[in-house]
C-alpha cells in the first residue's frame, strides 16, 4: 500500500504566494511605466531596464557569494525594487550609470544587509533613492522638460518641476505652474515614474482589487497631505509679494492642496512605497497612523525643509517607527 502523508491541519492552502504578490505589484507599475515612456521617450525604458537588471543581479550575487543561500530572484521582489528605484529618478542620460549605484545601495544595503526580503526595516528602493539624492544632488534634480523631449532623443533639454519652481520662490513661478489636469495625467517635469497620478491610481486600484494593499495607507497619506496643506493655504494662500525681511519681490504663502497632492512623489509614494508590506504596520489602526505621519512629514519637509520634495524622507522616517506602531496597534482581540 502507498504510504500516506501526515501533517497537521489545515490541509488546504489559499494558493497565495509571495511570488504572486510581487509579480502583481510589478503588473500594477506597468501603467506608470507606459506613461513615462510616452512622455520621456525611450530613455525611461532604458533606465528602468538597467535598474531592474542591476537589482536582480546584485541580489543574485549577494545570495550566491555572500549569504550562500538559494537564490530568490524569481520571487519578483528585486524587480519591484528596481522599478520603483527607476521611477524615482529623472529620465536623463546620466541616470543610466548612476542608477546602477542606486541599485547596489538599494539591494545591498537596503535589503540584503538585513537578511533579505521580509527583514529590511526600510523600503529598499527609497534607501537607494535617498542615497542618490544626497550623493548626486545635481543629476538627481535635473529633470528633462517634458514638452521638449523627443522619443529616441537621449540628450534632452532640462526644465523645472512644479515643486522646484515653488521652492525657488521666484515671482514668475506661479505663471509657469502647470494646470491641474496636466499634473493629473502626468504631463509635467519630475522623476519619470511619479508624474502621472492617473497611471499610478490605476495600478493602485488593481492592487486593492487583488487585496494586496488596502485603502488605509494611501488614503490617509494623501488625505492628510491634502488637509494639512489646505489649512496652510487657507491661512496664507500662495501669492507674489514683497518679503519684509529682505525687500525682494517673491512668492509668499503656501501652495494649494490640489497642487500638493498632484506633484512630486506623493501618489507613487502613497500607493506603492508606503504600502510596502515589509516596512509598513500590519494592523489597520497602525496603517492609519503610518499614513497620517507620512502625509504630515511630507508637507512639513516640502514647506520648511531644504529639499523641494519630502516624500522619500517622510516614508523612511515612518518606516523607522513601524516596529513601534506594530507594538502599540494590536488587532482587536475577540471579546476584549
Amino acid at each position: 500500500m502507498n504510504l500516506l502523508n501526515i501533517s497537521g491541519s489545515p490541509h488546504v492552502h489559499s494558493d497565495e504566494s509571495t511570488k504572486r504578490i510581487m509579480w502583481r505589484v510589478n503588473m500594477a507599475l506597468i501603467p506608470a511605466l507606459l506613461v513615462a515612456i510616452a512622455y520621456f521617450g525611450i530613455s525611461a525604458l532604458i533606465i528602468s531596464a538597467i535598474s531592474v537588471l542591476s537589482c536582480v543581479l546584485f541580489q543574485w550575487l549577494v545570495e550566491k557569494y555572500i549569504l550562500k543561500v538559494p537564490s530568490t530572484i524569481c520571487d519578483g521582489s528585486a524587480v519591484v525594487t528596481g522599478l520603483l528605484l527607476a521611477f524615482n529618478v529623472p529620465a536623463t542620460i546620466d541616470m543610466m550609470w548612476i542608477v546602477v549605484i542606486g541599485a547596489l545601495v538599494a539591494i545591498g544595503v537596503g535589503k540584503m544587509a538585513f537578511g533579505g526580503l521580509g527583514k529590511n526595516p526600510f523600503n529598499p528602493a527609497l534607501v537607494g533613492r535617498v542615497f542618490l539624492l544626497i550623493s548626486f544632488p545635481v543629476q538627481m534634480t535635473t529633470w528633462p522638460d517634458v514638452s521638449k523631449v523627443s522619443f529616441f532623443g537621449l540628450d534632452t533639454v532640462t526644465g523645472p518641476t512644479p515643486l522646484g519652481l515653488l521652492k525657488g520662490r521666484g515671482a514668475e513661478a506661479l505663471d509657469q505652474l502647470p494646470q491641474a489636469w496636466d499634473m493629473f495625467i502626468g504631463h509635467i517635469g519630475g522623476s519619470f515614474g511619479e508624474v502621472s497620478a492617473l497611471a499610478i491610481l490605476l495600478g493602485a486600484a488593481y492592487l486593492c482589487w487583488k487585496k494586496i494593499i488596502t485603502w488605509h495607507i494611501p488614503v490617509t497619506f494623501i488625505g492628510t497631505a491634502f488637509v494639512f496643506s489646505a489649512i496652510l493655504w487657507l491661512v496664507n494662500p500662495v501669492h507674489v509679494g514683497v518679503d519684509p525681511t529682505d525687500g525682494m519681490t517673491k512668492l509668499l504663502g503656501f501652495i494649494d492642496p490640489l497642487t500638493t497632492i498632484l506633484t512630486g512623489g506623493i501618489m507613487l509614494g502613497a500607493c506603492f512605497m508606503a504600502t510596502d508590506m515589509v516596512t509598513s504596520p500590519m494592523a489597520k489602526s497602525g496603517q492609519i497612523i503610518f499614513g497620517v505621519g507620512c502625509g504630515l512629514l511630507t508637507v512639513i519637509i516640502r514647506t520648511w525643509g531644504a529639499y523641494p520634495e519630502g516624500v522619500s524622507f517622510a516614508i523612511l522616517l515612518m518606516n523607522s517607527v513601524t516596529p513601534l506602531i506594530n507594538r502599540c496597534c494590536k488587532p482587536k482581540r475577540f471579546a476584549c
Partner: protein
Amino acid sequence: MGGVHPEENKISNDAAIEVMPVPSQMVVLMNQHLGAPATPVVQKGDKVKVGQLIGEAQAFMCANVHSPVSGTVAKVEPCKDAFGLAKPAVYINVEGDEWMETIDRTPDIKRECTLEPKQIVDKLKEMGIVGLGGATFPAHIKYAIPDGKKAEYLIINAAECEPYLTSDYRVMMEHAEEVCIGVSILRKALGVPNAYIGIESNKPLAIAKMQEMSRQFEGIIVEPLKVKYPQGAEKQLINAVTGRKVPSGKLPIDVGCVVSNLGTAFAVYEAIQKNKPLIENILTVTGKKLPSQHNYVVRIGTTYNDIIKHSIGELPATTGKVISGGTMMGKAVVNLDAPTVKGNSSVLVMDEGEARRNPETACIRCGKCMHACPMGLEPYMFSSLVKNNRIEEAKEHNILDCIECGCCFFSCPANKPLTDEIRLGKNKVRAMMAAKK
C-alpha cells in the same frame, strides 16, 4: 472579524445516506470521547447484543460505550487508533445482527417526550451521547448546568463550514423532523425558551427544509448565517446568533449559551425516543479523485479500510492523504486499520497534489494571518515567539485563545506552517502552566 473562504467542495451533497454493512470483525475503543476512557464491563467469551453496554463511564468526564454489533467478545486489549495511539479496546467477532429488545427499531417517528429535564440528562448519560461536532464532549455534562449558571440560548450548529463535509446537510435533508424533535428535547432539558439552528446560507435547500419543519415545533428558530469559515466555530457561532462574545478562557455557558452539533440533536432523538445508544455515525466518504461520493450510516468501530473497501473498492493510486474531518481542521489518518469512533464525520481522500504543502519562504510581514484570524490574534508573532522558546510572552499574547481553525496558515503567502507552530506553542504553554502548579 477574520475568517477565510476556502473552496467548498461539497461534492457529496446529493448522495443520499446509505447503510454500510456490518463488518465481520469489530474493534470498539473505550476512549471515544473527551476525558477518561470508559471501563470495559465485558470479558473474553461474553456474548453481546447491538446496543449493549460494554464500557462504563466511571470517571466524571467520561461517556458510556455500547456495542455496535452482536457477537462474541474476542479479547479486551489496547488497539491503535487512527492517529497511531494505543487505546483500550474491546474486540468483537460479529455474529448475526441481534439488537437489544429495548431499542425501538420501527420507522415510526415519536414526537412526545414526557421525561423531565433531569431524566433527559440521565438518559443522555446512559446512552453514551457525546458532542458530534468534533470535540466529543460528553452531553450529560454539558446539559447538566452547574449551580450559579443559567442557560438562556440553545444553539444548534448546522453551519457545516468545513469544506467537503456533507453529513449534517444530509441529516437535515432526510431527517428534519427527527432533528427538530431532538432539538425540542434538548431545549426542554435546558429549560430555555428558544433554540436556534444556525445554517450557513450556502445551503438554501436545508434552510428551507428546516424552516418548514421548525414551524411545527415550538421555540425552534432557523438562523441563516453568513458564509465564512469558521462560522461554525463555537465562539463565532454564538456571536453570529446572539451577538454575545465568550471571553478568553470562558465557556459558552458563561454567556448563557449551550451549543450542540446538529448530528448530536439527531443522536439525542434516537437515544431519548428510540432508546438507541450512540452506536452509529453518519459519515461522508468523499474526495475529488474518487469514482463516487457517498454519505453513510456506519456502525461506530468499522475500520477506515472497511469503509474504503465498501464504498470505493480501494484508494486511488495517487492518494496523498486520508483525513478524518474536513480540510481545515480534520486530522490526517495514520492508520487505516483503525476503527472509527464517535464524532467521526468523514473519510476524506486527498490527492497527492492537493495534499502537498508548498515550500516555506520568508515572512513578508503582510499581516494576512492577523487579518484572517477570527480570534484577533497575531499568528506571525507566535511563530517567532515559539521558535525562540519565549513561551511566557506567547501566553501573554493569548496564544491559548487560538481555536486552531487554520485560517492563518491557509492565507499565508509565505506558506509558513503557522497553525502547527501555534499548536506546539499551546502545548508548551500548557506544560509551563502545569509545571508552575
